[in-house]
């Protein structure tokens, strides 16, 4: 009732408005419990007759200055919000470990075996495009970094693996990676003769899946 024309009417004199401290409590409770910001008019409508929500608000606002919660203006209404400097308390960090995608592993493998290697070379070896996302991910993980530019036309950048990469995989140097012959001996590299010419179930499926998951972007991006 900040409207002066309302003051001193018969109706007002019938009821004494609650003391300002009480009005402040009311505004506090309403702002706290409201799902949406509340306008001064709404406050006045909800509070007993004769209250001055605007004044109560100012008191309340002052009271919360510097507190963990702020009384703030939202549009033409008011709301209580946690202080912005405490936003970090409202976040909970969860670390999820996920396996690197097949595209990323293959790209990483090529870089580690062929470094320094250009993107075009990676693509040639993989037989499919390499998405920017895949390379960025490996860069961000700090498993690869840019090497020297190749002294060929276009001066393409090369990629090399990092110390971080070597540490993660427990390698002294990239040269320690087992060669093809060793991979074969370890059974990791089966040269699968397929007499019937029918693709192996796993192989075909995985390719299809990759196509769907990563390949899509890879086909279009570059």
């Amino acid at each position, binding site marked *: 009732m900040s409207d002066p024309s309302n003051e001193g009417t018969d109706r007002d004199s019938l009821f004494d408005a609650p003391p300002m401290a009480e009005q402040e409590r009311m505004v506090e409770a309403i702002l706290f419990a409201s799902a949406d910001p509340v306008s001064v008019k709404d406050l006045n409508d909800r509070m007993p007759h004769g209250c001055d929500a605007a004044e109560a608000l100012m008191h309340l606002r002052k009271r919360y200055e510097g507190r963990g919660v702020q009384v703030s203006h939202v549009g033409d209404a008011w709301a209580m919000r946690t202080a912005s400097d405490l936003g970090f308390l409202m976040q909970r960090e*969860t670390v999820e*470990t996920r*396996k690197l995608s*097949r595209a990323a592993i293959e790209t990483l493998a*090529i870089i580690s075996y062929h470094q320094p290697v250009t993107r075009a070379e990676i693509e040639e070896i993989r037989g499919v495009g390499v998405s920017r996302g895949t390379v960025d991910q490996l860069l961000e993980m700090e498993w690869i970094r840019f090497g020297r530019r190749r002294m060929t036309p276009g001066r393409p950048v090369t990629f090399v693996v990092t110390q971080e990469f070597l540490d993660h995989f427990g390698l002294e140097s990239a040269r320690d990676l087992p060669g093809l012959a060793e991979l074969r001996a*370890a059974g990791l590299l089966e040269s699968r003769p397929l007499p019937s010419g029918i693709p192996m179930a796993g192989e075909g499926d995985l390719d299809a899946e990759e196509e769907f998951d990563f390949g899509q972007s890879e086909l279009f991006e570059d």
Partner: protein
Amino acid sequence: MTDPKDTPELQLNVIDRLAAEAFVIDVDGFEGPLDILLSMARTQKVDLRKISILDLSRQYLRFVEQAKELRLELAADYLVMAAWLAFLKSRLLLPPDPTEEGPSGEDLAAHLAFQLERLQAMRDCAAKLMARDQKGRDFFVRGILEQMERLRKVRYTATLIDLMQGYARIRTKDEFRPFVLDRQKVFTMEEALERLRGMIGFTGQWTDLDSYMPDGWHDDPVKWRSATASTFAASLELVKEGRAEIQQSESFAPIQVRRRETPRE
């Protein structure tokens, strides 16, 4: 409601039953054996141990009779209490037998009094509880919820084996032959059907299926297998259509087909 255990006189229609139950609930306010006792004990305003158990029993049994007419399940529940009371009455009326073991009528009455007092206390507590300030009615929770933001940090990982397998996969890719159906050596079902449809019209006699195979498909075993399979499948299709009959004298004997004289429609 229409429990088969109901006796015939209880097979009232639903409206009657609801009315009957409403009567029990609204007018009497009785809800269970202790409740009845409680209200009776209260109206007599006396110590349970001093009231006439005989009177109490009589009143109680009258109520049970009344309830029985309305609903057997209710009465059955109350019969336990009736038995209890009858037992209690007998203990109180008979002079105590020193040789008999077990609680005296006094003990039983005392226990009954305890139960009633406890139930009344719980009812008072329930009322006090519900009269308390309640959340969402008298006091309120924060209206604007700031969701705990979950910062999901994904850490990607791979093992050396993943790496080597990945590399091996790429390096051996060339050794795989991409899967392309070799159409040259396949005699399709459609082809066989077309061929068989054209030829069967001329054959009224049992003829080996083998003789319907296309020329030049007998020599290559791969082609022979394909042509045999599709021609057999085509013959079955014609049988299904009612245009041919098929027979085989024994397992692995030649399969024979012939035209069906009067095609089924």
